[in-house]
């Protein structure tokens, strides 16, 4: 049907002889919002990290927009950089750069990784912050933000380099019901222009309301919920 943006093929990851991922295989198509569902500790976060090129794994292949990394041998740094250019990530604890203002957190990568002129990057950063409703915090430092604000800034930072695939790790963990509804609208809006989202969550309600497809994760393997292959 649609264009396959992201695929994992038999990905196995061992950490000090404990199996974290046991031959994970799934595909994600353009414009989907896929929820990786499951209780804590089953390997959801590790899957996101594998897709982002932050984990080395023992076997299998990860492919994002035609860039493949595999587990057998080490991957050249240039390939990892190419992969990361396709993927954005919003961490559970956001990891905003603590020494930089909100605005600079957002324009840093466009300028220093993509070579966008600073003025242009700053303007775009302001626009992104405005779209996410946190432009009034542009000059604040991460330590001064609430959990919800920090998350929006982290999303803005990830979107600033315009990745075709955006990964979010437990985005509802620190939000109340109202904020959760806002986040759902926000994420759905993000998929409308062809961006693909993969969200790791243990929040059933959020997954039901929000995801176009739910993948169940159990003991390091993925089971399709909906029958879409």
């Amino acid at each position, binding site marked *: 049907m649609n264009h396959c943006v992201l695929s994992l093929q038999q990905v196995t990851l061992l950490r000090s002889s404990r199996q974290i991922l046991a031959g994970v295989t799934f595909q994600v198509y353009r414009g989907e919002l896929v929820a990786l569902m499951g209780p804590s500790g089953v390997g959801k976060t590790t899957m996101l990290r594998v897709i*982002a*090129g*932050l984990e080395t794994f023992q076997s299998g292949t990860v492919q994002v927009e035609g860039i493949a990394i595999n587990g057998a041998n080490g991957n050249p*740094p240039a390939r990892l*950089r190419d992969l*990361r*250019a396709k*993927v*954005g*990530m919003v*961490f559970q*604890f956001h*990891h*905003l*750069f*603590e*020494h930089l203002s909100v605005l600079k957190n957002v324009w*840093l*990568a466009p300028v*220093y*990784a*993509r070579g966008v002129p600073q003025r242009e990057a700053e303007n775009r950063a302001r626009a992104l912050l405005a779209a996410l409703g946190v432009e009034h915090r542009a000059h604040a*430092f*991460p*330590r*001064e933000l609430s959990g919800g604000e920090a998350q929006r800034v982290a999303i803005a*930072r*990830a979107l600033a*380099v315009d990745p075709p695939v955006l990964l979010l790790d437990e985005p509802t963990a620190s939000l109340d019901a109202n904020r959760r509804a806002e986040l759902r609208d926000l994420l759905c809006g993000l998929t409308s222009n062809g961006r693909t989202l993969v969200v790791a969550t243990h929040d059933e309600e959020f997954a039901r309301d929000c995801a176009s497809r739910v993948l169940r994760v159990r003991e390091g393997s993925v089971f399709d919920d909906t029958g879409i292959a």
Partner: protein
Amino acid sequence: MKFLRSSLRHLAVGLVAAAFLRTADVGAAASAGDFRWAGDPEGGAPFVEADPRQPDQLVGFDVEIAELIARKINRVPRFVNITFTSIDQSVERGDAEMGLSGIEDTPARRATMAPTIPYYEFREVLSVRKADRARFRTLADLKGRRVGTLGGTIAYEILLNAERDFGVQPVSYDDDVHPYSDLVIGRIDAVLLDNVLAERRARNLSGFAIQPQSVAIGHYVGILAVRNSALRDQINDILRTAMRDGSLESIFRKWRVWNDDQPRLYARLLAAQPVAAVTGFQASPMALTAWQALLGYLPSLLRASLVTIVLSCLAMFLAIVLGVSIATGRVYGSRLMRSLLTGYVELMRGTPILLQLFVLYYGIADLIRLPAFGAALLGLGLNYAAYESEIYRGALQAVPVGQLEAARILGLSETRVLTLVRGPLALRFALAPMTNDFIALLKDSSLVSVLTVFELTKQTQIFATNIGSWVIPGLLCAALYLAMSLPLATLARRLEQRWRFSTA
């Protein structure tokens, strides 16, 4: 290297001697039959020296005079090892009854201590490189030139006067060997010191000549505390007898320093004629009040503080630049680079900074002739770089991995991750230990006085020696160091507050 070896040998011999002799002191401290006398074996032959063949034995004419005195008062001589510039204070506080180590008779000593009658007359003579024999005959010929001497001596005071009168640049040394070696290699243009010292150096170092015309005439005396005046009078009688019966002459002949000046001096002393402390030079009148002395020394103390702060800031800058490079190399470099840098760090922090300064200034002088300030800057900078690098290495490794991953996932190269995220965050961890190190460096900078750099502690020591008290100079010196370190500590605290991390 020869000079370094010789000074190291002196140092080693001195240390061994000191260890043995100190033990002897302690063991005998209770005995009332001891005659405790203070000297500095680093001054070397022919005054007081550890016997090169038997380092636990002292030899020298001062040693023999002390033995002579002890014998006459039926006591056992016990040597107390005291740094030359501290002998006065040490005698004053009772560590020893008499100081005897080529100590000069000065009006200040006559006013504050109980010196013996002079037992030897010396001339302050100018030594110059052989090629300069014709053009540098007197201090007046040395306008704008660097002239070295031992700090805290009459010769140094003469040079301070010559600085005012002729524009000579005085250079103060802590020992009497390096002025001559620096003269020969051209770091300084002349040395003003006692003829005894000059002639001794001339025997084993060629390349310089002693000008025949003496600049001033001085005398060696023993010094006692004023409360020991009775003992001093007894010692004076012993010295007069020794002048009469030729025992002093035979001691000085043995050490090859007997000359025609001595019989003339003895004749005047035995005829009870007055002998001026110093002739040919108007020594600063003693009995300056502490307040006058303070006013007199304040400008030079402030100048010395400036040297201290400028040197410390530049050395810290060098240490930071090198330290950051070393730390980066140790975190990111290849295995070979990592082990080389680790070797450097261990070498620099595992050996005394004093040794490193000596090697830089004197040790490699045959290869690279660094100016004193340059060697001091380099020595402090290279040494502190090792400590700084460890701070930065720890700080780099303390940056949360989440921050690094966030930067990597945004597509920043490893270099950008380091310069934009990891480095700036590490700096925040490093700030407090860096401040600590800078303050330590500020104080360690006092070590560079061994390279003739005139900084605050050295200037204070001279001040204290000249007025014979450490109270005011010590307080003033402490105040100046605090005035330099406290603003820095405050600045660092402010920065830390501004950079405070979220604790979430």
